[in-house]
């Protein structure tokens, strides 16, 4: 086959795969069951890299991702560089919110982990609500990155105007602020190196016929409050102690989160966004707490994204069976709900005609099972939830980092046999 012919066929494959994915998302029956490849470190492990190497070596990771995608032939993939390749930039920043492989106590081949902590004190609610940007710049950035502590000295701009703006330039020349600004530029340059490789991988995979399934990541307002501001304990206590202030803060986030999410997705030239959820699951909150503090705000975020022409892929961690009747209230054919432990049969029943479901081959099966078990499980899922479309095959929270390659391959191959 000539190179031109191969290119044409790759472009036809791209269109075919994208159509298959969009048919599922928009609740039409595709030609067969679509798949998405989503994993943090599976591609790296597949090619003999450690987690640390994946976080630091952009080029080797690029090779690994391309090999994994080409070998697995998913209908779309979630880019890996933005999920993992930020080791060097974190070092430049002296970043505090993660522990990562080979840094401090973690071994070289262990996934990076978020450090749950209070990053905003309860008495700072008002400050955040009044001026979120000022809070982020003066308080939050210095807390999450050692190199950015001097940003606390930057002028308080909403109150600095006219010739005071000119005079405020003095702050930027202070030795410690100057160092922080230089660090920001170095971190930016490092991130540009990573983005360059990421963009090249995206183009290469597009040229090989593989669409992307996520052009950015965004959040639910409660998760931002709980994970990134108040910490898990603080957020849970705030449901009683600071209820009104928490609701006011989330009112801000309802506007701020989609604003950033839409900008990121549009800048990447795409129309899909990934939203991992952490606090909405059964057991964590009561149904009443869920419908007061989680869903109404998150629904607004979803609607804003959808209004901007973006399809959210929402990862509902844990078991969300009791939430199904509430979360079905979104415009039909615009969202993908990606379930970890939620019973997909119940999910399909509740969400039929509203939402495409994605999932949920268990991590335990991909790590400890056999290709045959994986194939059977995939086919069974197709039989029970595939009817009428609206189903994408994936693992529970993407492919686990420790999955056996033969099992992963079996999952993607089995979808090809699930024909409508």
């Amino acid at each position, binding site marked *: 086959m000539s190179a031109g012919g191969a290119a044409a066929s790759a472009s036809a494959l791209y269109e075919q795969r994208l159509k298959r994915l969009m048919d599922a998302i928009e609740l039409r029956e595709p030609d067969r069951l679509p798949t998405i490849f989503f994993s943090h470190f599976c591609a790296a492990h597949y090619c003999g890299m450690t987690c640390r190497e994946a976080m630091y070596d952009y080029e080797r990771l690029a090779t690994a991702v391309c090999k994994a995608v080409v070998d697995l032939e998913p209908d779309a993939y979630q880019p890996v560089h933005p999920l993992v390749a930020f080791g060097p930039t974190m070092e430049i920043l002296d970043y505090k919110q993660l522990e990562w492989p080979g840094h401090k106590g973690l071994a070289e081949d*262990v996934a990076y982990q978020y450090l749950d902590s209070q990053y905003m004190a309860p008495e700072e609610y008002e400050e955040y609500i009044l001026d979120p940007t000022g809070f982020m710049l003066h308080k939050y950035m210095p807390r999450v990155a050692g190199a950015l502590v001097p940003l606390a000295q930057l002028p308080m701009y909403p109150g600095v105007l006219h010739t005071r703006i000119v005079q405020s330039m003095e702050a930027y020349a202070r030795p410690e602020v100057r160092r922080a600004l230089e660090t920001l530029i170095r971190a930016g340059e490092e991130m540009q190196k990573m983005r360059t490789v990421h963009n090249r991988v995206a183009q290469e995979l597009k040229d090989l016929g593989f669409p992307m399934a996520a052009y950015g990541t965004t959040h639910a307002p409660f998760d931002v409050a709980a994970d990134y501001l108040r910490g898990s304990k603080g957020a849970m206590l705030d449901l009683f102690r600071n209820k009104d202030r928490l609701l006011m803060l989330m009112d801000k986030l309802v506007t701020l989160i989609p604003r950033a999410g839409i900008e990121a997705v549009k800048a990447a030239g795409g129309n899909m966004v990934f939203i991992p959820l952490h606090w909405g699951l059964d057991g964590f909150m009561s149904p009443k707490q869920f419908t007061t503090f989680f869903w109404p705000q998150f629904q607004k975020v979803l609607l804003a994204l959808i209004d901007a022409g973006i399809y959210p892929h929402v990862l509902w961690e844990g078991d969300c069976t009791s939430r199904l009747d509430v979360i079905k209230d979104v415009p039909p054919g615009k969202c993908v709900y990606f379930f970890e432990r939620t019973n997909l049969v119940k999910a399909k029943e509740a969400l039929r005609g509203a939402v495409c479901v994605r999932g949920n081959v268990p991590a335990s099966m991909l*790590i400890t099972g056999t290709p045959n078990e994986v194939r059977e499980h995939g086919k069974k899922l197709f039989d029970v939830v595939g009817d009428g479309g609206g189903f994408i095959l994936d693992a529970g929270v993407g492919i686990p980092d420790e999955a056996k390659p033969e099992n992963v391959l079996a999952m993607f191959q089995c979808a090809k046999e699930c024909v409508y």
Partner: protein
Amino acid sequence: MDDRGKQLVQQISDMQEEDAVKLARAMLDSGYDPVKLLGHCREAMEIVGKRYEQGEYFLPELMLAGEMLKAIGDMAKPLIKQDAPGAKTAGTVIIGTVEGDLHDIGKNIVTFMLEINGFKVIDLGIDVPVSNFIDSIKEHKPQVVGLSGFLTLAFDAMKKTVEAIRAAGLRENIKIMIGGGQVDETVKTYTGADAFGLNAMDAVSLCKRWVPA
């Protein structure tokens, strides 16, 4: 129980934090027996635990109940002249997040629920090396060991821990339960544990089954 005691139990179990702490302060200030007051707190925690088991309360309520217990305990304990006769424990459980995993929300909730159900819990923390489990088992001779892990890397760390417990000759007399993240029946078999739990209630039921009163 006297009226103030009843009121305290009700306020704690109904999540009225401010009122409960204020009432406890006033009771102690007026010379109320601190040991008796802590008994009321235990009773309130039993109600909270039951409501959690019945699906009326969730993690936020457990968290707040824990805060109230701590606040009142901090006020009452210094007033206790001599050690009260130790309450009989339902059994001893060693718990920890396995090596390589830094997550502890689930583990902490399990610890809390076991404690309010009368178990003595030795919490080894997060990222716990296998040797720490072994040393702690030798020292405390627990009936149950709970291995927690949120990430899938925990599957192998759990397996390694269970194998080390066996290799140390300590497996015979203890039950091992695992939980967290994507742990399921398959992982239970893979790791060689005796059972897995989806939530803190499962952990309590397992321990109660394994350690009869």
